[in-house]
């Protein structure tokens, strides 16, 4: 991929070390979210409730991992390493994904609720980057937003189908929402130096502002579907700073096993 740090329209700010560090931290959080959730989605391949959903979940997984790769490429250009090494060569405590993304899939209702909550949050985050003053990164975010729309189309259709699908389905989807909501709030945990990012215009909305916009998108829709987010839930924070569940360690063990068998192999 094009090295965005040195693109002709990259702002001078990117030549300043503090800005680079802050943008790097944001990109790493985005990349790790997409990689870990992409891997979880891929675990449905072959097991989803119908063939269309199987293909859809697999395609969404492929796109999330593809998006992670673009972000890793940019970090790798800065660090002098490779996207593969960033994705596969790190220990769990260096991952910055929100805990929501690493939870095991559980039932279909949980995976759909998680995907839906995440897709809306991701859209807010991408919009904050798309409206930023950081030219080439804004262009990338605009491109990714257009692809993410299809993910929302899928998760929203399923959310409605389950919420209106009778007692068992709506009960499952409500329980999934109860479980996922505090984790979803954790998606808006600030990355290191977020204040710096906002101050220099690299992020058009702070994580708190993103959360406000996200809630004003998801709450009315949940309400219309008869679903109630838990009241007064404390956000599940820590993921952005490497505090994870044992589940992430197990996920990484499996995901990286082929790469670890020969890190120097060329594919």
């Amino acid at each position: 991929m094009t090295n965005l740090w040195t693109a002709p329209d990259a702002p001078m700010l990117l030549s300043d070390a503090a800005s680079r560090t802050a943008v790097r931290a944001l990109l790493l959080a985005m990349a790790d979210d997409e990689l870990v959730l992409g891997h979880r989605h891929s675990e449905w391949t072959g097991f989803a409730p119908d063939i269309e959903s199987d293909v859809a979940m697999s395609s969404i997984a492929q796109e999330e991992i593809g998006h992670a790769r673009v972000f890793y490429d940019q970090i790798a250009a800065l660090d002098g390493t490779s996207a593969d090494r960033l994705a596969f060569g790190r220990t769990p405590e260096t991952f910055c994904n929100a805990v929501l993304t690493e939870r095991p899939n559980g039932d279909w209702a949980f995976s759909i609720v998680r995907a839906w909550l995440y897709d809306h949050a991701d859209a807010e985050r991408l919009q904050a980057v798309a409206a930023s003053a950081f030219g080439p990164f804004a262009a990338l975010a605009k491109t990714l937003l257009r692809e993410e729309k299809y993910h929302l189309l899928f998760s929203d259709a399923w959310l409605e189908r389950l919420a209106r699908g009778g007692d068992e389905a709506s009960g499952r989807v409500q329980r999934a929402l109860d479980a996922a909501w505090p984790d979803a709030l954790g998606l808006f945990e600030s990355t290191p130096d977020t204040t710096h990012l906002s101050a220099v215009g690299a992020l058009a909305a702070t994580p708190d502002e993103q959360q406000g916009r996200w809630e004003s998108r998801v709450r009315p829709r949940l309400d219309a579907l008869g679903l109630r987010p838990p009241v007064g839930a404390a956000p599940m924070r820590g993921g952005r700073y490497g505090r994870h569940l044992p589940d992430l360690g197990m996920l990484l063990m499996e995901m990286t096993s082929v790469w670890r068998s020969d890190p120097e192999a060329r594919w």
Partner: protein
Amino acid sequence: MVTPDAVWLALSEIQDPELPIAITDLGLVRSVDIDADVIRVRLIPTFVGCPALDLIREEVSRRLMALPAVRGVDVQYTFDEPWSLHRMTETGRAKLVAHGVSVPRVRLAEGATCPFCGSTDVVLESPFGPTLCRAVYYCRTCRNPVERFKPPADAALIVPNR
């Protein structure tokens, strides 16, 4: 000396690995610059997560390096312009339709036409198909499953008659 015509001709002979059309007809090539026999090509991905991106870039490098007098090739993807259906040529559209893939004019939310029988009584089965750039439809007239080229979503995406 390398000429732009020679470069574009070479590019027009490279097929997309997932669709039966040239990468120039798909509109993947944004710019070609030649400076002292070094060729700089900028490509636009249809979908950023497309697994064929590396393959296409390597093929472009290989073909261009094989041109006479070329001293170097720099091929990279750019996000300066998001890919849209406006970039696909009429030749590209016709070839996809002949291959049985329906192609919207601008966006997926438009009504679809069956590439086999021409019917417009075609409904969306799933926005996700065999590749990231294809959705699956069903023709109620000739009762065939239909694949349709899926552009990245612009503006408000409304999908009709689900």
